[in-house]
């Protein structure tokens, strides 16, 4: 960057290092990476001499973008093609491991349904146009000389962080827009809000590897969580001797629940009462001290006695006592709330009740640690919530926008019908989608800009889960191969050209996003570079795939507050609860276009390629249906028909229909396959946070009188007496493998 002088402070801001005066420590920079094959010292495929070694696979570091956890990856590149992704062992997030969605990243990249040219709506149709025409259209609508009112421009994205976020903020500032909506259908916004309030840290580190007992109220740590691999590696530790116990309380079995020692079904919306019932038992029967709590909190605890909790939840007093007893005998424990608890009208209060358990049990500071503060707020993760979807929808209803940009999320697929998103979007004069695929949102847009895949593009990312209490990584996403399609562009490049088109001086000097990133790295505060020269620091960072950042020390507080949970009410005309469960695989629907994942048996039902509804055998018997029969699931907002899978991992009052399928667009593998339970969600929002209450929908189910068969793996659900999976009790495990690792 050259041409004009900017003050160092502003300069740091342009480069993303603007902050609050951080204490920064040096980094440990490896000189080489150990590579599985060839053992070359490799920096980047950008260095051509190292790019192609015929017949030899070379591994380059980058960052997985299949979910917002941002795991570190190594891509195996051979003859200029990326063939296989593996975890980067140096990553603080995933320690060399990947989940199935991460493994399938190559099928997002090489997907046959990628869009390869910009598309502009002409009349009714989206037609392919040149970039020149696309950019001219953009310029006309939002460029410097356009008459656009910046207040009427909105950006709607998925979770984001790093330098892309820095550039996007700069762009929105230049336009004069204050509307950046960050939406994820799968999020932990309610828990974050509760944590911020009660613990003074929205995303504290959960350390179940240090816990003797993990009690989860529907938190699907191993599956649809904020960092599936991070939590799974931790779970491996947790299960090693002296093996921690795991109790899961949820309406329908999640992947995490499938691993529990005790799986307890619960009616969604009664978890808060159950948590208070447990607290009541701990305080009144088991000698836990509540004297430090406010009168109001103690009053509430008194109100929810175990008999009442048993009546509301349908879980026996003995069972509640058993769980309370476990909490007492196995310390420290860790108690967490997940979507089924958060996603209710009073989900915030219920989650607070669950978090209060940690305070009373003395877990705060033991199994819940401070996450510290990331010193560069500009780059910090902007985590998605569904509140942003709701406020976006209501702004659309009031016709507040003339131009909307979409990127990294597909709200037209995941938004409930009642929001009327498609109709309201029709009234927005100009909608732009930046995407690799023609998904439902792109299909209703006026301009579609084809993105590079994450394996072709540059970026930096800051995860908000993972890392230690002292450091976290800014991970680097670098291209693992040349772009497949000439007419696709990187996200950073597009935002940079938008900035240039607005004539924002600070950015006019950069040829492309890569040049910007290089400069950003050149301006890295010395405390981070450890005094390494610019080139050495850049290359070292690329090799490692990350820059380690010292965090500002944080401290957890404990501000327990009273959180009254409303009584669960029956709804006679819609007597069942809908559980639109999320899965590690289809996720929020973004992976429905990956053939490997479509054909990957669901962890619970083992179904492939289609949707299903899970119901309890007693429910199935009442309805007269068996596996594969079609049922109708009807809410006040609409109905879906879906085949049924019967198992004992569902509460009898619950019907679980996993989200992720039911696409109307999105390519050959996704389109027209399965159903989308999110469409029939009722208009229920969480009172305090304004989040969509994902588990707040009541439905009725009926036999659709259509016999069928589920397409799934395995004929037998039972071992039929054969020793396939042998199980021993934890007692035996302790006797033989004990507290240490000794085997006697």
């Amino acid at each position, binding site marked *: 960057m050259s041409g004009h002088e900017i003050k160092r402070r502003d300069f740091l801001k342009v480069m993303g290092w603007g902050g609050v005066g951080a204490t920064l420590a040096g980094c440990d920079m490896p000189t080489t990476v150990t590579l599985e*094959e060839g053992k070359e010292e490799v920096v980047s495929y950008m260095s051509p001499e190292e790019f192609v070694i015929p017949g030899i696979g070379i591994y380059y570091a980058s960052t997985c973008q299949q979910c917002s956890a941002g795991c570190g990856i190594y891509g195996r590149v*051979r003859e200029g*093609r990326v*063939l*296989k992704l593996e975890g980067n062992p140096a990553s603080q997030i995933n320690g060399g*491991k*990947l*989940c*199935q969605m*991460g*493994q*399938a990243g*190559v*099928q997002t990249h*090489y997907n046959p349904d990628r869009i390869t040219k910009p598309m502009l709506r002409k009349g009714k149709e989206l037609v392919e146009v040149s970039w020149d025409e696309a950019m001219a259209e953009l310029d006309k609508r939002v460029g410097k000389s356009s008459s656009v009112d910046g207040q009427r421009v909105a950006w709607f994205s998925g979770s984001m962080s790093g330098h892309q976020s820095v550039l996007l903020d700069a762009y929105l500032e230049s336009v004069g827009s204050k509307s950046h909506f960050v939406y994820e259908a799968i999020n932990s916004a309610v828990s974050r809000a509760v944590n911020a309030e009660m613990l003074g840290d929205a995303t504290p580190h959960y350390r179940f590897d240090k816990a003797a007992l993990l009690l989860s109220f529907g938190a699907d740590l*191993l599956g649809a969580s904020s960092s*599936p691999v991070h939590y799974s*590696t931790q*779970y*491996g530790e947790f*299960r090693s001797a002296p*093996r921690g116990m795991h109790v*899961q309380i949820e309406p329908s*079995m999640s*992947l995490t629940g*499938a*691993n529990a*020692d005790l*799986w*307890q*079904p619960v009616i969604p919306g009664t978890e808060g009462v159950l948590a208070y019932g447990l607290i009541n038992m701990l305080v009144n029967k088991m000698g836990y001290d509540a004297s430090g709590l406010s009168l109001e909190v103690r009053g509430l605890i008194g109100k929810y006695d175990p008999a009442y909790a048993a009546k509301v939840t349908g879980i026996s007093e003995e069972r509640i006592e058993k769980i309370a007893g476990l909490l007492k005998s196995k310390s420290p424990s860790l108690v967490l709330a997940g979507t089924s608890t958060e996603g209710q009208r009073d989900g915030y209060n219920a989650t607070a009740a669950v978090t209060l358990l940690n305070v009373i049990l003395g877990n705060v500071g033991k199994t819940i640690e401070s996450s510290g503060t990331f010193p560069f707020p500009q780059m910090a993760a902007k985590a998605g919530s569904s509140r942003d979807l709701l406020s976006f929808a209501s702004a659309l209803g009031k016709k507040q926008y003339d131009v909307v940009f979409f990127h990294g999320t597909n709200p037209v697929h995941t938004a409930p019908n009642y929001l009327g998103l498609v109709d309201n979007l029709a009234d927005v004069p100009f909608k732009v989608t930046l995407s690799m695929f023609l998904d439902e949102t792109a299909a209703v847009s006026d301009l579609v800009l084809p993105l590079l895949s994450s394996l072709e593009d540059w970026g930096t990312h800051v995860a908000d889960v993972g890392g230690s209490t002292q450091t976290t990584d800014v991970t680097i996403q670098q291209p693992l191969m040349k772009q497949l399609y000439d007419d696709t562009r990187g996200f950073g490049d597009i935002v940079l050209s938008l900035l240039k088109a607005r004539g924002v001086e600070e950015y006019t000097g950069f040829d492309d996003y890569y040049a910007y990133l290089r400069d950003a790295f050149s301006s890295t505060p010395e405390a981070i570079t450890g005094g390494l020269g610019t080139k050495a620091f850049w290359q070292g960072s690329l090799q490692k795939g990350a820059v380690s950042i010292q965090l500002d020390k944080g401290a957890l507080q404990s501000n327990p507050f009273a959180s009254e949970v409303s009584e669960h009410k029956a709804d006679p005309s819609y007597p069942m609860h809908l559980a639109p469960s999320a899965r590690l*695989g289809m996720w929020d629907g973004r992976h429905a276009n990956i053939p490997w*994942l*479509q*054909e*990957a*048996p669901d*962890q*619970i039902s083992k179904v*492939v*390629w*289609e949707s299903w509804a899970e119901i309890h055998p007693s429910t199935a018997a009442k309805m007269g249906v068996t596996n594969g029969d079609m049922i109708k699931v009807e809410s006040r907002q609409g109905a879906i028909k879906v085949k049924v899978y019967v*198992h*004992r*991992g569902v509460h009898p009052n619950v019907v679980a229909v996993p989200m992720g399928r039911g696409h109307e667009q999105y390519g050959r593998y996704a389109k027209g396959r399965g159903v989308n339970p999110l469409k029939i969600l009722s208009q229920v929002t969480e009172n305090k946070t304004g989040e969509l209450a994902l588990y707040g929908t009541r439905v009725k189910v009926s036999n659709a009188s259509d016999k069928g068969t589920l*397409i799934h*793996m395995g004929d037998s*659900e*039972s*071992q039929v007496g054969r*020793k*396939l*999976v042998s*199980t*021993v*009790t934890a007692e*035996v495990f302790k*006797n*033989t493998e004990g507290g240490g690792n000794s*085997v006697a």
Partner: protein
Amino acid sequence: MSLSNLLNDWTRYRQGIEEGGFHDYEHIFGMAIDLNKCIGCNACSIACYAENNLAVVGEEKFAKDQGMHWLRIERYWDEPDLGADDQEFQEHGASFLPMMCQQCNAATCEPVCPVAATYHTPDGLNAQVYNRCIGSRYCSNNCPYRLRYFNFYSYYETSWPAPLDQQLNPDLSVRDKGVMEKCTFCIQRIRVAKDTAQREERELVDGEFTTACAQTCPTSAIQFGDLQDPNSKVSQLWKQYQVKLGTTEQSKQNKELRGYRVFESLNTEPCVMYLDRVREV
């Protein structure tokens, strides 16, 4: 050819019983899979798809049991070891079992192959020679673990529409209709490690190579290595849990110790040891 194959196997089999397993191989690659750690996430299975050019067969063919998942995660709902199976709820969760070719040393699939397309390598691997296979499917009939997958069609014609085909691993072939395939313990990865060791004139080092499934497993439930190397992690685990080759029933000093091989009473001599699932009841 098949007769000599059969006789060879028979000799080895006899010898194995008399001498506590046959150890006249250069390597015996084996695994230890800890069901206390396996969470059933399926990452290993997709890693195998990516590494080994496994075809996606599509909905209709999958419905006819033609899925090509060399590594499948079985999920059972019953728990015979924990007693009665008549509870109202699935109180101890599910039972997951990652199942791939067990690389049996006395493989029941081998002697029945009329053309010796499946045979034992000097590395103790149960190998499949695709261009020798005539598709008789005797081997798969004879595999007690149901881990052999037959190419009833030319799945490649629909599995990798361009540019998906660019992801294919050039270190191994794409199979056409009429041949049998199955987990190879990622033989191409072993090959690379062996070649490198040879070039550098040294022995294979434990940990310098692993299979795609073991590599990605988030909980490190899968350990892979050479059972002939007494210091390898996998050997240590077999020793620690007192699981031995060359027997149809493990005799352990401590009967409660975890560790077994699936269907070992059939005397197939599998090289995959499972550590029992654990539940607190």
